[in-house]
C-alpha cells in the first residue's frame, strides 16, 4: 500500500485529534474579503465558526479540547458545540479536508 494513503474511513469522535493536511489551504481571499479553503479542484467557503474550528485543528488538540475552547469563547453549552463540531469535521474528513 502506498505510504500515507488513508484506506479506512476516519470516524471523528471527541478523542480524535484532527489536522488539516498541508495540501489543504485555509487562506484569506483578499479579492473577495473572506476566508476560503483551497483543495484539489475544490473551493470551500467556511463561515466564521468553521474558520475558528479549522484553525484549532492542529493535530494536537482533541475534538473535546476544541469544543471546550469554543464553549468558553462563545459562552455556549459544550454538548451542543461538540455535536456540531463532530458533524462538521466528519463531513470534512469524508471530503479529505481534515485527517484524523
Amino acid at each position, binding site marked *: 500500500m*502506498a505510504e500515507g494513503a488513508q*484506506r479506512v474511513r476516519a470516524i471523528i469522535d471527541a478523542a480524535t485529534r484532527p489536522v488539516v493536511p*498541508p*495540501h489543504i489551504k485555509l487562506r484569506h481571499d483578499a*479579492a473577495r474579503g473572506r476566508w476560503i479553503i483551497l483543495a*484539489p479542484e475544490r*473551493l470551500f467557503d467556511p463561515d466564521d465558526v468553521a474558520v475558528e474550528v479549522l484553525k484549532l485543528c492542529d493535530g494536537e488538540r482533541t475534538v473535546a479540547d476544541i469544543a471546550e475552547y469554543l464553549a468558553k469563547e462563545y459562552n455556549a453549552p459544550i454538548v451542543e458545540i461538540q455535536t456540531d463540531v463532530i458533524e*462538521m469535521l466528519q463531513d470534512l474528513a469524508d*471530503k479529505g479536508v481534515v485527517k484524523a
Partner: protein
Amino acid sequence: MNEYSPAHIKETAMPLGARQPGEEDKDSTEIADEACARAPIGLLAELTHRCPLQCPYCSNPVELERVNTELTTEEWQSVMRQAAELGILQIHLSGGEPTARRDLVDIVKTAADAGLYTNLITAAVLLKREQLEQLKEAGLDHVQISIQDSDARPENADRIGGYKGGSAKKKIVAGWVRELGMPLTINAPIHRHNVDNVEGIINYAVELGADRVEIAHVQYYAWALKNRAALMPTREQFNVAAKIVEKAREDLKGIIVIDSVVPDYYAKYPKPCMGGWGRGIINVTPSGRVLPCHAAESITGLEFDNVKDKPLAEVWLEGEAFQKYRGTDWMKEPCRSCSRREIDYGGCRCQAFALTGDAANTDPACSLSPVHAQWAKVAEVESHETPPEFIYRRPGGAGPKPSAQKKPVPSDA
C-alpha cells in the same frame, strides 16, 4: 464575541472545463456566483501542446500549436503573477503534457510564490522522480494523473493512449507522488473501450492511494468529436456505469472522493460549461492566447487577445471574446426566457457552434433545442455500430483512417 451558531461550510467544485461536481446543490451555485462576481477563480494554463500520448479524445484543439510559438518562461511567470493579482485562486498546469516544458519547476515556483494553489495535470509518462521532488520543493500542491484503464488491462490502456508501456509508467509515478506525501487525483476518461471497467478503475485509484478519482465520460468536442463513433458508449453502458459510481461513492465514503462527469448526449440538461462563459475560468494557450474555454477557438470569427499584447485583467474584463457570451444578454430563445438560463447558461457555446453553426443557439444537449432529437439520435446510432479505428491525436490532425466529415445540422437561428 458573537453568539455561537452551527459551523457551516459550503462546497463548490472548481468548474474546470466541462467538469461538474458529483453532487449538485443550490449552495454550490450560489458560492460560484459570488466567487466569480469579481474575478475568475481558476486559470487553465496549457503550457504546451506537445504530448507523448495520442489519446483520441484529447481536449486540445484539432489544430495543435507548435513548439516555436510557445510562451517563454518569463512570459508564463508574468501570467502567474498577473493571475494572482487578478484574484485567481487556482492554477491548473496542463497541456498537452506540461512536464514536456523544461522550465516547469520555475513556472510552478513563481505561481506558488504568488500564493496560487497549483495543480499539475499530467499523463505522467515523462516524469522523473527528481523532477517530482523539485516540483514539490517549488510548492506544487496537487498532482492529477490521467489513466486510460486499470493496470489489470495494460494493453488496452496503452492502445487507447497510443503509448506503449504508459500504463506501467503511470503506476510508478503515482507511487512516487504518494511516497512524497503529495495528494493525488486519478482522472479516467470513460468511453466504450473502458466503460465496462469503471469498478476496476475506481478500485485501482484506491490502490494507487488517490484521494480523488474522476470518472470523466468523454466530452465530445475537438478530437473526441472526430472520434465520436469510436468512443460513444451506449445508453445502457452509461447507466450501468452510473450505478457503479453511485454505489462506490457510498462504499468508499471517507476513503476516496469520486467525481463524475456525464456525457451530455445522455444528460437531461446541458452542462453549465465552464460554469458559464467568462464567469470563473480563464484559459491560456501555449502561444498566450486567452480563451474563455479551451475549445473556444473552434468558434470561428471570435477574436482572442494574447497575454503578449494585453494585461490579463484587461482581457478578462473587456476582451471581445469574453464579453460576447458572458451573462445572459446574448441569448436567443429558448434560452432568453428560460428559468434555467442562469443555471446552465445555455450550455456549451462550442457545441452549439459545431452542430448548429451559431454559438448563440441553445446547446443541442438541451431538450429545448430544436435540433436536440436529431443530435441525441446520433449517440444512439453510433454507439450500437462497430466502432471505427481511432483517429489518434497528432500534430497535423491526420489519423490512420480519417472518417468522413459529418455534415453540420442546420442552424436554428
